[in-house]
């Protein structure tokens, strides 16, 4: 006979805790499986493949022929062209990102102010973004073409009579010229994201600040910027990663030249893997490049998180 409680109520049977807990654990596992699988397929597998290729003699048709240890990495580190490309790419990425974000914020503010401009102008600003990169490269190559390109035609119209301006053939100006095309292509993305952040601002705060006498740059610095700085930082981070990946414009506009002046790690990786069939070297450069990108982007990511908080 079961013991009765002091209140005369029937005894409470302990809940069968094990079964629900197991069910909950299984449910957690089932729900987590897609994420884990995605991580393995999209992250771990390519990384392991690249590391294995970097540590082996691998060609395009026959990967992992022979283990060579750190030979590929040592060879890549000793190659002055590889190191120069890593430095060049970092400077380029930081430069075009800064310009893109600055211009993008300015354009977004202008659009936000000019409400009357409406969706037509906003769509117009997005045109470069929806233009295929191949077309962007061809357009800008034609713009910079020294034999009858836009710049050549304009400078001649303005009275220039000497040798034509050949920006893409200048070791000093070729990369800035590619940067102009890059900024033209990607600034609309910055504009779009910052514009969305501006729309999310509380208009009452702006109105209150305006009533207190804040206008123009003061209003931007004290009210608008603090409200959108988290988004701006995040956009800078995204833009930085996109700029590091620059490849199509370089192939189309300069093929990495003149000399090596526009050769980036992405171009070297393409050359090594698909033109020279040396996948081991391509993987070694990829690892070095990944390390550089990580080192440069981590501080930006930390800053972004702080500003968002």
């Amino acid at each position, binding site marked *: 006979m079961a013991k009765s409680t002091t209140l005369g109520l029937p005894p409470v049977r302990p809940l069968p805790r094990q079964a629900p807990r197991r069910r909950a654990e299984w449910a957690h596992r089932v729900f987590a499986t897609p994420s884990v699988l995605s991580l393995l397929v999209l992250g771990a597998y390519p990384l392991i493949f690249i590391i294995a290729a970097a540590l082996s003699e691998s*060609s395009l*048709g026959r990967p992992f022929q022979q283990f060579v240890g750190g030979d590929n990495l040592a060879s890549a580190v000793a190659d002055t062209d590889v190191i120069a490309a890593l430095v060049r790419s970092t400077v380029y990425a930081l430069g075009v990102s800064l310009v893109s974000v600055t211009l993008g914020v300015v354009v977004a503010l202008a659009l936000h102010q000019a409400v009357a401009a409406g969706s037509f102008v906003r769509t117009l600003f997005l045109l470069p973004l929806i233009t295929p990169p191949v077309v962007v490269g061809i357009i800008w190559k034609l713009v910079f073409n*020294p*034999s009858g390109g836009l710049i050549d035609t304009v400078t001649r119209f303005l009275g220039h009579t000497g040798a034509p301006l*050949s920006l893409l053939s200048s070791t000093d100006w070729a990369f800035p010229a590619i940067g102009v095309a890059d900024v033209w292509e990607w600034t609309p993305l910055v504009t779009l994201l910052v514009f969305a952040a501006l729309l999310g601002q509380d208009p009452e705060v702006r109105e209150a600040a305006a009533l207190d006498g804040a206008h123009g740059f003061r209003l931007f610095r004290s009210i608008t910027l603090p409200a959108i700085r988290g988004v701006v930082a995040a956009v800078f981070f995204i833009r930085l990663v996109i700029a590091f990946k620059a490849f199509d414009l370089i192939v189309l506009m300069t093929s990495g*030249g003149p*000399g090596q002046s526009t050769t980036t790690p992405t171009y070297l990786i393409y050359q090594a893997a698909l*033109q020279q*069939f040396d996948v081991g070297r391509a993987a070694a450069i990829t690892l070095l490049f990944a390390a550089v990108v990580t080192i440069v982007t981590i501080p930006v990511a930390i800053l972004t998180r702080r500003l968002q908080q």
Partner: protein
Amino acid sequence: MSRALPSRRARWAAISLAAASAITLSACASPASGEAGAEGEELTVLLISSHEGAAGWLKDEYEKKTGVVINPVIVPYDEIGAKLSLDQQSGANTIDVAAPWYVSIGDLAADGSIQDLTEWIEGDAEIDEGDFIPDIYDPYTLVDGKRYGLPFDGDTHVLFYNKEILERNGFAAPPATWDEYVEQAATITTNESGDGVYGAAVFGQKSPLILGASFANRLAGFGGEFVDSTGAPSINSAEAVAAAESLRDISEYALPTPAETAFGEGNGAWFNGKVAFIENWTDLGVGSQDPATGSLVADKWGVVTLPVGDPSIAPRASLVAGFTWVISGNTEKTELAKDFIKWAASSEVNEALLTSLPPTGIDPNRVSSLESASYGELYPELQEVNRATLSGALAWPTGKNAGQAAQVLVDELAKYLSGDGSTAQETLDRVQAKWEDLLG
């Protein structure tokens, strides 16, 4: 009176006879080269964009002869090797036949992406190996003693000149040496660049098939070699240094700018009559006469063999960008593929491609097609300059890592031409060191 119907047996006999006759007739109609193929079969053929015209011709003619459907896959010239290799390595195996740059066949063979055809080629008398231009045949097909294909496009460079521009600037004849070439180009550019006319279009974009070709043309003219008679690299020789310096000298007077000039830019300027000289494949002459190309220089051009370093040196051909028929490593249609490439590399087909309009971009690969009456009748000047391939043409190294070696040379030359501060000798010494590692 009604006619009696034939019996069932008689009807079957008639149908069988008709079927047998049809099979016999179709077999008789098929040429020898079509024996491996059968109506309705398909063959996928990988070619570069410059060979698109040839691809159309080959497709139509082979289908007419055999009933086999040819599916051409066209890719940019610098992607054909990677495309073939990835197709085989990935297991897709969609490509049966390809015509890659001959320099890449060593790497493709090392990867198992193409088949060793030595036994078949040696055992099939119809291929007529002896008729291939000797200076083309071995470099284009032979790696470490094994034969991996048959020559498709001879592709040697010659010097085209615009007669009107030379005449306007007081030159009675095109240059015989590279120094004269620079002098004439400099004069023309000085006189006419204000009107958009330049002395020369120089292919200088950083690619082995472009800048590499311009260097190879000069190396041939100065009497140099990429590798010596034992196969060891000799790229820092005095002749190679002279070739690099000559290339730097012309850059100043060339169509702006050599670093940006590839086939499209150079050929466009030539067809528009904006350059006096262009080093190009012999088929440019066919295109120059073809109204469909928009050429403004029809009947205004001449062609000579490439200049030389010194008048005492005999002109040589430079095999800058030849292409070779190969059979992919994993194709299940090897016999059909063999039949196709044997036909496509035959003398008759090469002769037809040389003179076909619209231009097919194909140069001679056989002695018989080079010397054919039809080629000589239509393009006597081209036939004459192409005879340079018959004596001591300069070919790139082949074998494993040859593609990487070509790229190393081009990267270093591009740095030298962009003014990195190195001398030609220092530049080529660096290339020599890297080539010794790559080519042994």
